[in-house]
């Protein structure tokens, strides 16, 4: 399947701030793709470039093979959910959706369907300015999917929502992907949320893609991580750093996170016990660390382990 969205060595500055610095990424349109990174990493800038709200200083951005800045018609293929939803405040919700639907050549039936799907039928006659944050977010989704786009681009879609609304929204994304076949690009800095819905991820940090791949592959690529609970972790850390196959030792919350070269896992179990005895440190726990996105992310943003995106 050809790429839905493609960035090739994109650079973008805002004054002295370098928002994107050699950003390269290919996003297929057939899955749920996560764009993850801390605030200020460049996710929103990448999304704005992707839908043609911004023009790159250097590099190339293609949305379904077209320049999104120069060709507004390519946006017939996408729906966009912005982080900060802004709609005409004095227009009624149902009326607004009818306008959007007609823009895409859809009728009132689609409006009714999408409002029912998102559970906002009862606010159809209310002015948008009077809607709650949660309902506004649902309206935001409704206007993005009303024309059944090939790709829905959502920038921090769960921002400012309570936990229940967040869960609902993520569920909606999953349902729309599975039942309607819509592709999604979802950006977030809340890793656990993306972990629930995405099948592919890209980590963005300091304006670059640091790592990209299937979720399962990413987790696999971070094998060899151990968690060591002990007393006086700093002393044991110093000793562990002397082992030739230990690549990284980090003290995190009183525990140690140790990364070893592939194939040395058994050696590590043996050596960590003997080293602990040598330095007189009591061990409480040694085990393979169940890697979660948070840890992957921390590892990448700590300045080590960065892998260039493809």
């Amino acid at each position: 399947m050809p790429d839905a969205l493609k960035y090739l060595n994109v650079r973008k500055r805002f004054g002295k701030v370098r928002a994107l610095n050699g950003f390269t990424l290919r996003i297929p349109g057939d899955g749920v793709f996560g764009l993850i990174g801390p605030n200020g990493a460049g996710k929103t800038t990448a999304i704005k470039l992707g839908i043609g709200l911004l023009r790159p200083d250097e590099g190339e951005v293609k949305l379904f093979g077209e320049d999104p800045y120069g060709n507004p018609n390519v946006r017939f293929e996408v729906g966009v959910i912005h982080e900060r939803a802004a709609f005409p405040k004095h227009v009624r919700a149902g009326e607004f959706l009818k306008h959007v639907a007609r823009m895409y050549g859809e009728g009132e039936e689609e409006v009714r369907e999408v409002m029912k799907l998102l559970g906002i039928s009862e606010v159809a006659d209310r002015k948008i300015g009077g809607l709650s944050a949660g309902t506004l977010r649902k309206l935001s989704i409704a206007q993005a999917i009303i024309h059944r786009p090939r790709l829905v681009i959502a920038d921090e879609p769960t921002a400012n929502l309570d936990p229940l609304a967040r869960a609902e929204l993520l569920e909606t994304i999953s349902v729309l992907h599975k039942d309607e076949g819509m592709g999604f690009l979802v950006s977030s800095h809340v890793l656990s949320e993306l972990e629930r819905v995405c099948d592919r991820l890209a980590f963005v940090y300091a304006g670059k893609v640091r790592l990209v791949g299937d979720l399962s592959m990413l987790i696999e690529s971070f094998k060899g991580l151990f968690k060591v609970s002990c007393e006086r972790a700093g002393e044991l850390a110093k000793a562990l750093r002397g082992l030739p196959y230990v690549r990284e030792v980090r003290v995190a919350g009183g525990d140690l996170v140790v990364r070893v070269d592939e194939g040395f896992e058994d050696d590590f179990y043996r050596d960590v016990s003997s080293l602990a005895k040598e330095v007189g440190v009591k061990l409480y726990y040694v085990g393979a660390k169940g890697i979660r996105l948070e840890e992957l992310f921390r590892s990448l943003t700590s300045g080590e382990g960065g892998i260039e995106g493809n």
Partner: protein
Amino acid sequence: MKVTRPSVILEFISMELSETWRFPLPELFSFLYVLFPLFFSYLVRSIVMGPPEAKLVFVASLAEGTVSLITILLILKNISYGLANELKGGLIQTYLSYPVGRVALLSVKVFSGILIPLAYVVFSTLTFAYVNLPGLVTKYFNVLALSLLSLIGQLMLAAGLLLLVSILVKGGGASLGLGIASLFGLDALSMAFNMLGGTTGEEAYWHAYYLLNPLDALVNHYGSLRFLYVGYGRGFKPSLNQCLTYLSLHYLIVSLIYLASFAYFARRFEP
């Protein structure tokens, strides 16, 4: 640059009208624009002026001092406050995420925020002239048309400045403040040319003044009265050809300002 589909533009116009021209705004302004002809009818019918054309130019001058002020307030509300807040608040970003081009979107905004208020002025002034001076309007329609073109040109210049400031500043309060300041600046410049022309007698200053105020050139050409005139003397009497030149150059300036606004919005504006 690919163009936006007409159906999308029409939908944006419809949405824009629902948002900007909602009750009671059209009703209120329609009332104010109707009030103008009612209020000044007696004045126009009773005042004796030189040539008949002067009466028609006076109608435009009356409109400049009355409905034009309402129109400027309306444009300040629509553009300096409304559009600027939409730029800042993210609504324009939402709109630009739909399959609409930047030029098309700004055209819709200009249509709703500037052209509709100007249409009110044209309609109100024409109605006023037809009701009170039906014979003159038929016979000297070209004079009335020229006067209206001059009046609309002056309003378009002011509105163009407000539009440019709004796009550049991108913030409701600041845009409003700077917009009003730019209108005062334009008036101050006008007054400076007027005073310099009046005190030194140099025609160059009057040319510059008439360039910014082509309606005043017509007023002086036809020897008409001037409603709410604040200035130094009547200035020199330009020929009709000179009036047309001022008007053409005035529209050239107006076009350049709108061109700059559209070019900036299309090529440089970053939501």
